[in-house]
């Protein structure tokens, strides 16, 4: 008899849990509003997940200190690790929607993960907020109604900025591209090609690498032979570091301009002594004179996280800043919607008039045609100095 019991338990329990949570959910009234986050919390991009977490947390702390939302309900962050794996991310998103009952899900650094989650969110009619992944078609996904919003860069716009920086800072005439071999790389290949064409320069060549590649010298060698005078790098921290190591090994002192993927991990440690040579894009810098929001956020960061001793320790700044502004915008949308219902929340986002934010002052950040709150005027170029990120001056 014990067998039967065990077997039955094994199968009936989940059903029980499922039904129980159905009943349970309707019975809860003054419970917290859950904010989901599906991001890389482990692996080479773990720092990005940590940065986003910190940005959201600082914002949530402020909102909760003000008494919460929707009649005193507190906000609560529920995180899931996608391990930079789209399938894991998608499963995690399902779980957050159906089991945790989150009002919105924030996305992480990896465009492929966000691309996998977006259609699910549109089907489930729960808003998705991208705060890092930049692939153009995450927000421009053709769905109607579209539940995907973003407070982050858009590749087409970033790519223009990267080409522009290569031309102005390094007088580049023939940049070579080195891109990660996935959806994000594809998005940037299109964007960079268009941007170069618009700027009237030719690309030397485009090379691809896989995330786990340990040796980039063959690709670099080919770019060198193609006569590249600047490299434009699109990739995450670990392979990005291997690109720099490969350059160092072959003593090729070519300038490098990079998308911001490298700032999602321990790039300066992994890349070694040449890490500082890379110029890359961010949406915000905590160095220099700050607006009120910047001062407040920096102070809160330093108070909450012992490892943050100054502006250079807010790494990666893009994750913190985007996530902070996105969370504040979400709070406004929630207040406007007056409910955690997905469809109402979506309308809440579209109804936001203005918000005095960290990165900028947002005016009508989201419209029916544009779900991207940031644009090409919102980027800064930075580089590593040791572990710290500082703006490029001069």
């Amino acid at each position, binding site marked *: 008899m014990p067998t039967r019991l065990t077997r039955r338990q094994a199968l009936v329990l989940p059903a029980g849990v499922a039904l129980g949570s159905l009943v349970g959910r309707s019975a809860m009234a003054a419970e917290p509003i859950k904010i989901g986050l599906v991001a890389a919390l482990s692996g080479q991009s773990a720092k990005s997940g940590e940065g986003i977490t910190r940005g959201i947390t600082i914002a949530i702390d402020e909102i909760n200190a003000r008494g919460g939302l929707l009649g005193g309900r507190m906000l609560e962050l529920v995180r899931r690790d996608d391990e930079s794996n789209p399938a894991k991310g998608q499963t995690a998103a399902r779980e957050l929607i159906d089991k945790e009952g989150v009002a919105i899900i924030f996305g992480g650094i990896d465009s492929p993960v966000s*691309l996998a989650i977006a259609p699910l969110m549109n089907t489930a009619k729960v808003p998705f907020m991208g705060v890092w992944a930049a692939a153009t078609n995450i927000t421009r996904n053709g769905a109607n109604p579209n539940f995907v919003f973003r407070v982050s860069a858009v590749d087409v716009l970033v790519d223009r900025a990267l080409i522009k920086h290569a031309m102005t800072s390094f007088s580049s005439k023939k940049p070579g591209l080195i891109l990660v071999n996935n959806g994000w790389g594809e998005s940037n290949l299109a964007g960079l090609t268009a941007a170069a064409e618009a700027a009237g320069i030719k690309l030397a060549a485009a090379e691809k690498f896989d995330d786990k590649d340990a040796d980039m010298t063959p690709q670099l060698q080919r770019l060198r032979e193609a006569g590249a005078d600047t490299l434009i790098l699109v990739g995450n921290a670990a392979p990005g570091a291997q690109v720099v190591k490969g350059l160092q090994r072959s003593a090729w002192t070519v300038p490098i301009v990079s998308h911001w993927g490298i700032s999602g991990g321990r790039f300066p440690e992994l890349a070694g002594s040449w890490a500082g040579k890379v110029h890359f894009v961010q949406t915000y810098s905590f160095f220099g004179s700050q607006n009120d929001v910047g001062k407040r956020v920096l102070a809160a960061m330093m108070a909450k996280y012992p490892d943050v001793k100054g502006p250079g320790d807010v790494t990666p700044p893009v994750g913190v800043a985007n996530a902070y502004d996105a969370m504040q915008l979400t709070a406004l949308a929630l207040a406007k919607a007056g409910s955690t219902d997905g469809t109402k929340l979506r309308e809440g986002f579209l109804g936001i008039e203005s918000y005095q934010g960290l990165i900028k002052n947002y005016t009508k950040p989201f419209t029916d045609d544009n779900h991207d709150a940031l644009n090409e005027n919102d980027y800064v170029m930075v580089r590593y100095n040791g572990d710290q990120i500082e703006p490029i001056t001069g």
Partner: protein
Amino acid sequence: MKAIFFVIAALLAAGVAATCLLAPGYYAYLMGTLATTALVGVGLNVLLGLAGEVSLGQGGFLALGAYGVGILTTKAGLNFWEALPLAVLLVAAISAVLSIPALRVTGPYLAMVTIAFGFIVESVSVEWQGLTGGASGLAGIPAPFGTGGTALLACALCVLALVLFYYFTRSPLGLAMQATAAAPAAARGIGISALPVRTAAFVLAAVAAGLAGGLQAALTGFIAPSSFPFSQSILFLLVVVLGGAGRTLGPLVGAAVVVLLPEFLASLAEYRLLVFGAGLLIVLWIAPDGIAGAIARLVMPQASVPHARPDIDLALAHIAGSSGSLVAEGVRVAFGGVVAVAGVDLTAPPGRVTSVIGPNGAGKTTLLNLVSGFQRPDTGKVHVGSADITGQPAYDAARAGLARTFQTAQPFGGLSVLDNVRLGLLRGAWRGEAPEALARALLALVGYTGSETRLAATLPHVDRRLVEIARALATKPAVLLLDEPAAGLDDADTAKLGSLLQRLARAGLAVVLVEHDMSLVMSISDEIVVLDAGRRIASGVPAAVRADPAVKAAYLGATTSIEPLAPRPAGAPLLDVRDLNAGYGPLGVLHQIGLRVGRGETIAVLGPNGAGKSTLMKALSGLIRPVEGAIGFGGVELARLPAHLVARAGLILVPEGRQVFPQLTVAENLRLGATRRGDFDNAEIEAMLERFPRLRPRLHTAAGLLSGGEQQMLAVARGLLARPDILLLDEPSLGLAPAVAAELFGQFTRLREEGMTLLIVDQMADHVLAIADRGYVISGGRVVAQGAPSQLRDAMLDDAYLGAHPAVVN
């Protein structure tokens, strides 16, 4: 019980359906994942649980199925119901192609091929962007129903697969898979060709994984290369092993643990895999049959089903159906220059018992292998009836009407007794009838009286033999070959076996018996063929063979004029063996052996082939452990020591067959002999070369290149370099030319003079007795006589070696 079972099953089904259709989508998704995981597990269970092969590439087939459905629906515009069968067909085709290289290899090599396949699929799905969407994957794959409905479909298919698996394990093909895994040689021996069976297992496993992949694609609506990481293939293996390989419900239990446990242990998220790994280790330690296996053993004792009295006439009619002689002409085979069988003729007519006898190493088993297709003869012809089976593989020989048993009984351990026999009835066919009544009748015919549902692996030795014979008879043979069927049987069982064989011969079978038990051979044989050193040296009726001087010489050594040395009085006791019982697993060989050796004595141990002499040597030297009884050795108790400590204690065995290290040089072999002592000196090698001058020119030659006599000298020299307190010599003259044997015994005489304590087992009884102070005769694993050499020689040796039971001399 049955009613309760159905109620529970209905409740389960209702629970699953409710979860899929009523609960939030995530739970339906979880159910669907559980079902697809279990589905892959069911397929892998066919490969691992039934066919015994490991695959670490199931993730690759899963991915192929998923991409098949994904591509066909999103790119070719098919709907799910059209895409799924096509995708599964594609997987079947690809796995069949892969099986060509994969199934040429087994074990770790096969594991490597499947790993490689999984990685290739992953890389191709990244690279072939136009078709697969590259690393970003394919999104928007249509599902036949909503998430709940699709999950329910997956559950239904999973249940269907479990039911099919249950019946498949009992089907001819399923049984053949288990047989091939359990005892490959025996499976060939009843007509099962291994390659198609293994290919079927491989393809079935792949098809299940492909089906699961197609369902998963519809369930998630999105697939990417990262959905199918290598770790997933390990996970599938874990599902099967954890649940219990070969158990119908095993994959379901395993999948439930793997998929649901993390949900219950959400707080363990970080430690999830850690807990899995440790859990798997623990399951492997304490429940080798997996969770389902452990539970089944606890709550479902094997019930014996009562049945009608078997009709032995049915069995006799079955075996009387085919008839024909075995005729082998000039069969010869050589292994690397050593001629094992040198052109032997053998004719076994129907209705008669033809026995093949000869001393150890005469080539009897090799001859059996040659005529039954297990080895290919270099020259010669083999016919069964009118069919020429020369050089045919064993399964074809079996289908032509030749059945055999093995020296070590090889029942299919994981199958019931009845299924063992039913497989024989099928003769390797994948479909067909194997009536249980006939199988039962055959079991009754051979005298098996135990439970028919018992797993063959758990049978006692006698029953293993009987089941093996019943299985062989089930193939409806014209010729039945038996390789030492009486080994390990007691007198009563041997007598029963003898009358069974005679009865089978009377029923029209040509019975060929290779046997050491001379009383059995002499009492039931119609004709005896005697082999020595691969040649046929005599044949005829038992009385004639027994009287043949050539046969006597082959068994006892040429009775040249060896002057016996005078026995000496016993020295101080050195080795004292009392009540020693030992054997191999279920097979008890030695019974209550008592034996004493004094310091400086030379003791002979004699007895017929198969009496247990070598087993005794192995038991004394520690190669067989555990043993019961006491082995006192100069104050040290050896019975519990492993071999290397026995050697260190000073008891050194020169094993049967020399056992030199073939790729090491003679010098290195000698040097190893001195491992026991720390004070080896190269001068000692010189002393050995002086003792065995034939070794001197070969000192830096690989030992494997030495002649048999040189190898034996090397083995003795190696033993002596250990400076033993007692030297055990197991069959030192086996296979040596008489002159070389004489030279060797000359050395033993010298050692005797030097005061070395010697315990010698040898077939050349005259040689040994000539230098022995005392001797023991062993028969049937017992000491049947002991005493002075003259007494032993005169009283009973002839009888013990060539039949009839010896009188005990004391």
